[in-house]
């Protein structure tokens, strides 16, 4: 098991109190797996991604563990995390432009970066060139400034740099969101290629766009208001969602081919709860069409047949075994 996250809690410090952006999530990412992380803005998906590599100043580690290849990531210790960054955990941020130094040519920037990490840049040079070619970039980009590249090229340069030392875990945070459709496809497919060639072991691909996730991810984890809602293989999330939130989310997506006159889609009424003082029980309760009195208790996270769900009312997938009381690792 490449990554094992156990009951991770990370809050944001604000003047009004702690915003519980990540409030107890538990999951695993297998070797060679691309796990998609989906959810609306403010559901904690980027917080989860960031907390696995670097907490920014406002974020506060509260509880939980993250174990990568048998080694615990010291999330709470910024200094100790440095040994893991780039070598074992790497990130591709949403805006590639802000990840590249605008005053350095790409080649020189990579050179400096590697030296700062104690790696001999000359040794990695052939591998760097090979990988740039692989993602469809000319070696010439090394002599260019970031401003001279297009958005998709910058995104791919950052992807090559991030994975240069073959990290075990790559976090891709909304990397396709700011791109045009054709570039988006090329970048998303490059990610899959990077995994297929073994440059990274596992990947967490964060995006709000379920359609893109379906294209690249093996499993999809849906978050809602700082907690996990559902986890299942990508095909299952799209074709057979069980959590009412996932179901409504999937059915609200307009696809090419769906037209207003023929099929009017509906959104989800209401808005996510404030995480400053989140409601007790199921957090989707106020917007959920299935909600009952039982939902005032927090639903346990139940994992079965490779899919997990946190919902009292969702119908379980038909299982051949006689119906046993659902007991999961409730927390």
């Amino acid at each position, binding site marked *: 098991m490449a990554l094992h996250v156990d009951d991770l809690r990370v809050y944001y410090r604000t003047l009004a109190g702690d915003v519980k952006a990540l409030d107890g999530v538990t999951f695993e990412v297998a070797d060679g797996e691309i796990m998609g992380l989906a959810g*609306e*803005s403010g559901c904690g998906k980027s917080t989860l991604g960031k907390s696995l590599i670097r907490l920014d100043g406002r974020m506060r580690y509260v509880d939980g563990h993250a174990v990568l290849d048998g080694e615990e990531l010291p999330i709470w210790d910024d200094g100790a995390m440095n040994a893991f960054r780039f070598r074992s955990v790497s990130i591709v941020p949403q805006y590639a432009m802000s990840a590249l130094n605008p005053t350095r040519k790409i080649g020189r920037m990579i050179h400096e970066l590697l030296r700062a990490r104690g790696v001999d840049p000359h040794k990695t040079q052939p591998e760097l060139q090979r990988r740039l070619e*692989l*993602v*469809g970039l000319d070696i010439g980009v090394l002599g260019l400034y970031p401003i001279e590249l297009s*958005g*998709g090229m910058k995104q791919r340069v950052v992807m090559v740099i991030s994975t240069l030392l073959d990290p075990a875990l790559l976090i891709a945070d909304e990397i396709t969101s700011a791109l*045009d*459709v*054709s*570039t*988006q*496809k*090329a970048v*998303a*497919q*490059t990610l*899959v*290629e990077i995994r297929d060639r073994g440059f990274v072991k596992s990947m967490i691909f964060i995006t*709000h*766009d*379920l*359609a*893109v996730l*379906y*294209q690249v991810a093996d499993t999809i984890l849906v978050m809602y208001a700082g907690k996990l809602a559902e986890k299942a293989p990508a095909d299952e999330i*799209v074709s057979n969602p069980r959590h009412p939130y996932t179901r*409504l*989310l*999937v059915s*609200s*997506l*307009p*696809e*090419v*081919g*769906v*037209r*207003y006159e023929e099929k*009017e*889609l*509906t*959104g*989800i009424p209401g*808005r996510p709860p404030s995480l400053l003082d989140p409601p007790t029980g199921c957090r989707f309760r106020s917007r959920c069409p299935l909600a009952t009195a039982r939902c005032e208790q927090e639903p346990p996270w139940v994992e079965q047949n490779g899919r997990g769900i946190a919902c009292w009312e969702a119908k379980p997938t038909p299982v051949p075994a006689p119906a046993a009381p659902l007991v999961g690792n409730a927390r």
Partner: protein
Amino acid sequence: MLRLDGVSKTYRVGSLGRGRLTAVRDVSFELNPGEVLSVIGESGSGKSTIGRMILRLLLPTAGSITYDDADIGALHRGALKDYYRNVQGVFQDPFSSYNPIFKADRIFSMVHAEFFPRVGADEWRQRVHEALESVGLNPRDCLHKFPHQLSGGQLQRLLIARALLLDIQYLVADEIISMLDASTRIDVLNLLADLKTRGLGILFITHDLSLGNYISDRTIILRHGCVVELGATQKVFGDPRHAYTQDLLASVPLLSEKWRRSDAGSSPAVRLPEQAEAPELVRVDDDHLVAAG
């Protein structure tokens, strides 16, 4: 009717404006009442420039935009104000469209003072409430709040309500739902479709093909400022004739079908060379024009 005739726009770029960048080349189309026309293109295709020219935030370098046979470039003072009573725009980022220190109702009072000074306060309140209800907002929930207290979907609907107060005939909607979450964006989209059935003409500018397909009657595909394909939405999406349109459609991620893996990691979709002149449009079907070459 809103009509664009051979409209081009060239920006001056670079130091001292020595460079020239042609954002829109020789674009012609009509927008009728009760119709949603999608303008779809990738970044840099000139789609927003077209919207801004229609709103007269920019003047075209060549060609003309006419509203009911009057060239909007020649409108001044009272006539221009009348134009804005009829044509309004809503933009992408709802959070930057508002003044953060004004409460939401202030934008309505500004419309009141500017356009309807003779309408009494009570009647105006009534009109505001009607406009809010027609966009699915509860006046009590949103009027006395600051923008940061409202969600993106609510803010966009407030802006549409503001436009509706002016008895508009046409709305330029420039990427108005790109910043919204999946669960709320469809509601705003349905609202636009509802306004259309009430006779509003909507120019729906987007980069998202599935949204354009969902809502629009007619579609324009733009590339490097030139019209590549234009026609009834079902024809453009159902039977794309131009290589660029086909290419775009093949890149759209679908929930029903995975991308073909054969071209994994290949270079981004066909990059046709930029042309100096706008290609000529050829009629291939009823209400379906395609750029030659």
